[in-house]
Protein backbone atom coordinates (compact mmCIF):
# COMPACT_ATOMS: atom_id res chain seq x y z
CA UNK A 1 0.00 0.00 0.00
CA UNK A 2 1.45 3.33 -0.95
CA UNK A 3 0.68 6.79 0.26
CA UNK A 4 1.56 9.32 -2.42
CA UNK A 5 1.48 12.23 0.02
CA UNK A 6 4.24 10.62 2.14
CA UNK A 7 6.84 10.50 -0.60
CA UNK A 8 10.06 12.16 0.50
CA UNK A 9 9.23 11.90 4.18
CA UNK A 10 12.21 9.63 4.93
CA UNK A 11 14.54 12.07 3.25
CA UNK A 12 13.22 14.97 5.32
CA UNK A 13 13.46 12.94 8.53
CA UNK A 14 17.01 11.88 7.71
CA UNK A 15 18.09 15.46 7.12
CA UNK A 16 16.41 16.72 10.28
CA UNK A 17 17.78 13.89 12.40
CA UNK A 18 21.21 14.32 10.85
CA UNK A 19 21.31 18.01 11.72
CA UNK A 20 19.94 17.42 15.22
CA UNK A 21 22.61 14.79 15.88
CA UNK A 22 25.44 16.43 13.98
CA UNK A 23 25.37 19.86 15.60
CA UNK A 24 25.90 18.68 19.20
CA UNK A 25 28.55 16.17 18.12
CA UNK A 26 30.55 18.79 16.24
CA UNK A 27 30.11 21.24 19.12
CA UNK A 28 31.35 18.62 21.59
CA UNK A 29 34.33 17.87 19.35
CA UNK A 30 35.31 21.52 19.26
CA UNK A 31 35.10 21.77 23.05
CA UNK A 32 37.11 18.57 23.48
CA UNK A 33 39.77 19.88 21.10
CA UNK A 34 40.03 23.05 23.17
CA UNK A 35 40.24 21.02 26.37
CA UNK A 36 43.00 18.94 24.79
CA UNK A 37 44.91 22.06 23.77
CA UNK A 38 44.47 23.58 27.24
CA UNK A 39 45.69 20.32 28.83
CA UNK A 40 48.83 20.33 26.67
CA UNK A 41 49.43 24.00 27.47
CA UNK A 42 48.79 23.67 31.20
CA UNK A 43 51.08 20.67 31.65
CA UNK A 44 53.84 22.44 29.71
CA UNK A 45 53.31 25.61 31.72
CA UNK A 46 53.42 23.85 35.10
CA UNK A 47 56.46 21.74 34.18
CA UNK A 48 58.47 24.62 32.77
CA UNK A 49 57.50 27.00 35.56
CA UNK A 50 58.60 24.36 38.08
CA UNK A 51 61.98 23.92 36.39
CA UNK A 52 62.58 27.65 36.17
CA UNK A 53 61.48 28.35 39.74
CA UNK A 54 63.71 25.58 41.10
CA UNK A 55 66.72 27.14 39.36
CA UNK A 56 66.04 30.65 40.61
CA UNK A 57 68.30 32.43 43.05
CA UNK A 58 65.54 33.88 45.25
CA UNK A 59 61.82 33.72 45.86
CA UNK A 60 61.29 36.97 43.98
CA UNK A 61 63.18 35.64 40.96
CA UNK A 62 61.22 32.41 41.20
CA UNK A 63 57.96 34.33 41.07
CA UNK A 64 59.05 36.14 37.94
CA UNK A 65 60.25 32.88 36.42
CA UNK A 66 56.89 31.20 37.09
CA UNK A 67 54.94 34.07 35.56
CA UNK A 68 57.21 34.16 32.51
CA UNK A 69 57.12 30.41 31.89
CA UNK A 70 53.34 30.15 32.27
CA UNK A 71 52.72 33.14 30.04
CA UNK A 72 55.09 31.82 27.38
CA UNK A 73 53.59 28.32 27.35
CA UNK A 74 49.99 29.51 27.16
CA UNK A 75 50.71 32.15 24.52
CA UNK A 76 52.54 29.64 22.34
CA UNK A 77 49.47 27.41 22.50
CA UNK A 78 47.24 30.27 21.42
CA UNK A 79 45.65 30.73 24.84
CA UNK A 80 45.20 33.86 26.92
CA UNK A 81 47.78 33.87 29.68
CA UNK A 82 45.73 36.21 31.86
CA UNK A 83 42.87 33.71 32.08
CA UNK A 84 45.00 31.15 33.89
CA UNK A 85 45.16 30.74 37.65
CA UNK A 86 48.68 30.04 38.87
CA UNK A 87 49.66 28.92 42.38
CA UNK A 88 53.11 27.99 43.50
CA UNK A 89 54.56 26.92 46.80
CA UNK A 90 58.24 27.00 47.66
CA UNK A 91 60.18 27.17 50.91
CA UNK A 92 61.63 30.53 51.84
CA UNK A 93 65.11 30.91 50.40
CA UNK A 94 64.73 27.96 48.01
CA UNK A 95 67.11 25.78 50.00
CA UNK A 96 68.90 22.98 48.16
CA UNK A 97 66.95 19.75 48.00
CA UNK A 98 63.62 21.42 48.75
CA UNK A 99 60.67 21.15 46.39
CA UNK A 100 58.76 23.74 44.40
CA UNK A 101 55.15 22.95 43.51
CA UNK A 102 53.46 24.81 40.68
CA UNK A 103 49.78 24.46 39.81
CA UNK A 104 48.22 25.91 36.68
CA UNK A 105 44.48 25.97 36.04
CA UNK A 106 42.91 27.16 32.81
CA UNK A 107 39.19 27.63 32.10
CA UNK A 108 37.88 26.38 28.77
CA UNK A 109 34.53 28.05 28.02
CA UNK A 110 31.82 25.60 27.01
CA UNK A 111 29.49 28.05 25.32
CA UNK A 112 30.88 29.38 22.05
CA UNK A 113 29.23 31.33 19.28
CA UNK A 114 30.35 31.03 15.65
CA UNK A 115 32.77 33.83 14.71
CA UNK A 116 32.28 35.44 18.13
CA UNK A 117 34.10 33.06 20.43
CA UNK A 118 33.41 32.88 24.15
CA UNK A 119 29.82 33.73 25.07
CA UNK A 120 30.26 33.46 28.83
CA UNK A 121 28.64 30.72 30.83
CA UNK A 122 30.21 27.64 32.38
CA UNK A 123 33.78 26.52 31.84
CA UNK A 124 35.70 23.28 32.07
CA UNK A 125 38.74 23.82 34.27
CA UNK A 126 41.90 22.07 33.18
CA UNK A 127 44.45 21.72 35.98
CA UNK A 128 48.08 20.66 35.97
CA UNK A 129 50.56 20.41 38.84
CA UNK A 130 54.29 19.88 38.73
CA UNK A 131 56.69 19.35 41.63
CA UNK A 132 60.31 20.23 40.92
CA UNK A 133 63.25 19.72 43.25
CA UNK A 134 65.84 22.38 43.84
CA UNK A 135 69.12 20.83 42.69
CA UNK A 136 71.03 19.82 45.83
CA UNK A 137 74.41 20.10 44.10
CA UNK A 138 74.07 22.53 41.17
CA UNK A 139 75.22 26.11 41.49
CA UNK A 140 72.69 28.92 41.08
Amino acid at each position, binding site marked *: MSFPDERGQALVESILLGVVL*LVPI*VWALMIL*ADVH*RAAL*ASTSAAREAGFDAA*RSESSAAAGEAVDGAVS*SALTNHGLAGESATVDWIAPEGLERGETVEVSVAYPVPVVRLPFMGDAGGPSVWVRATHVARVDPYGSR
Partner: protein
Amino acid sequence: MVLAMGIAQLALTLYGRNVVIASAHEGARAATELGRDVGEAEDIARRTVRSAAGSLVENMDIVVTTTTAGDDTIVRVRLTGRLAAIGPVPVPLSVDVTANSVRPGEVE
Protein backbone atom coordinates in the same frame (compact mmCIF):
# COMPACT_ATOMS: atom_id res chain seq x y z
CA MET B 1 28.49 6.30 7.34
CA VAL B 2 29.97 9.26 5.50
CA LEU B 3 28.79 11.48 8.34
CA ALA B 4 30.49 9.33 10.97
CA MET B 5 33.72 9.27 8.98
CA GLY B 6 33.52 13.02 8.52
CA ILE B 7 33.27 13.48 12.27
CA ALA B 8 36.27 11.19 12.74
CA GLN B 9 38.17 13.27 10.17
CA LEU B 10 37.33 16.47 12.02
CA ALA B 11 38.54 14.93 15.30
CA LEU B 12 41.82 13.84 13.66
CA THR B 13 42.31 17.28 12.15
CA LEU B 14 41.80 19.03 15.47
CA TYR B 15 44.13 16.56 17.18
CA GLY B 16 46.79 17.13 14.51
CA ARG B 17 46.53 20.88 14.89
CA ASN B 18 46.97 20.61 18.66
CA VAL B 19 49.99 18.34 18.25
CA VAL B 20 51.63 20.77 15.83
CA ILE B 21 51.06 23.69 18.22
CA ALA B 22 52.48 21.75 21.17
CA SER B 23 55.45 20.47 19.16
CA ALA B 24 56.51 23.95 18.05
CA HIS B 25 56.42 25.02 21.69
CA GLU B 26 58.38 21.96 22.82
CA GLY B 27 61.06 22.68 20.23
CA ALA B 28 61.39 26.33 21.18
CA ARG B 29 61.41 25.60 24.87
CA ALA B 30 63.92 22.76 24.64
CA ALA B 31 66.34 25.00 22.75
CA THR B 32 66.45 27.39 25.68
CA GLU B 33 66.97 24.76 28.36
CA LEU B 34 70.31 24.55 30.13
CA GLY B 35 72.76 22.30 28.31
CA ARG B 36 70.97 22.45 24.97
CA ASP B 37 71.56 24.56 21.92
CA VAL B 38 69.40 26.14 19.27
CA GLY B 39 70.25 23.47 16.72
CA GLU B 40 68.28 20.91 18.70
CA ALA B 41 64.98 22.80 18.40
CA GLU B 42 64.17 21.50 14.92
CA ASP B 43 65.00 17.91 15.77
CA ILE B 44 62.93 17.97 18.97
CA ALA B 45 59.92 19.59 17.27
CA ARG B 46 60.08 17.07 14.40
CA ARG B 47 60.40 14.08 16.72
CA THR B 48 57.50 15.34 18.86
CA VAL B 49 55.21 15.60 15.84
CA ARG B 50 56.22 12.20 14.51
CA SER B 51 55.81 10.42 17.84
CA ALA B 52 52.43 12.03 18.60
CA ALA B 53 50.81 12.26 15.17
CA GLY B 54 52.79 9.92 12.91
CA SER B 55 52.01 10.58 9.26
CA LEU B 56 48.99 12.75 10.05
CA VAL B 57 51.20 15.79 9.41
CA GLU B 58 52.66 15.86 5.90
CA ASN B 59 55.17 18.12 4.16
CA MET B 60 56.45 19.34 7.47
CA ASP B 61 58.88 22.23 7.41
CA ILE B 62 60.52 23.68 10.49
CA VAL B 63 62.42 26.96 10.57
CA VAL B 64 64.32 28.00 13.67
CA THR B 65 65.51 31.57 14.03
CA THR B 66 67.18 33.38 16.88
CA THR B 67 67.22 37.04 17.76
CA THR B 68 68.76 38.89 20.64
CA ALA B 69 67.07 41.37 22.92
CA GLY B 70 69.59 42.84 25.30
CA ASP B 71 71.32 39.91 26.99
CA ASP B 72 68.48 37.51 26.19
CA THR B 73 68.22 35.21 23.20
CA ILE B 74 64.80 34.62 21.69
CA VAL B 75 64.35 31.31 19.88
CA ARG B 76 61.50 31.23 17.37
CA VAL B 77 60.26 27.96 15.89
CA ARG B 78 57.93 28.12 12.89
CA LEU B 79 56.32 24.83 11.98
CA THR B 80 54.34 24.48 8.77
CA GLY B 81 52.76 21.45 7.21
CA ARG B 82 49.59 19.87 5.95
CA LEU B 83 47.17 17.74 7.89
CA ALA B 84 46.49 14.59 5.89
CA ALA B 85 42.92 14.20 4.68
CA ILE B 86 42.01 10.90 6.34
CA GLY B 87 38.27 10.75 5.69
CA PRO B 88 35.58 11.61 3.19
CA VAL B 89 36.61 15.24 2.68
CA PRO B 90 39.64 15.12 0.36
CA VAL B 91 41.02 18.51 1.35
CA PRO B 92 44.28 18.57 3.33
CA LEU B 93 44.40 21.56 5.65
CA SER B 94 47.49 23.68 6.09
CA VAL B 95 48.89 24.46 9.52
CA ASP B 96 51.31 27.24 10.28
CA VAL B 97 52.26 27.86 13.90
CA THR B 98 55.00 29.84 15.60
CA ALA B 99 56.35 29.46 19.12
CA ASN B 100 58.82 31.64 20.98
CA SER B 101 61.00 30.99 23.96
CA VAL B 102 63.49 33.22 25.76
CA ARG B 103 66.88 32.14 26.98
CA PRO B 104 67.96 34.61 29.67
CA GLY B 105 71.43 36.07 29.31
CA GLU B 106 74.23 34.52 31.31
CA VAL B 107 74.98 36.20 34.64
CA GLU B 108 78.61 37.34 34.79
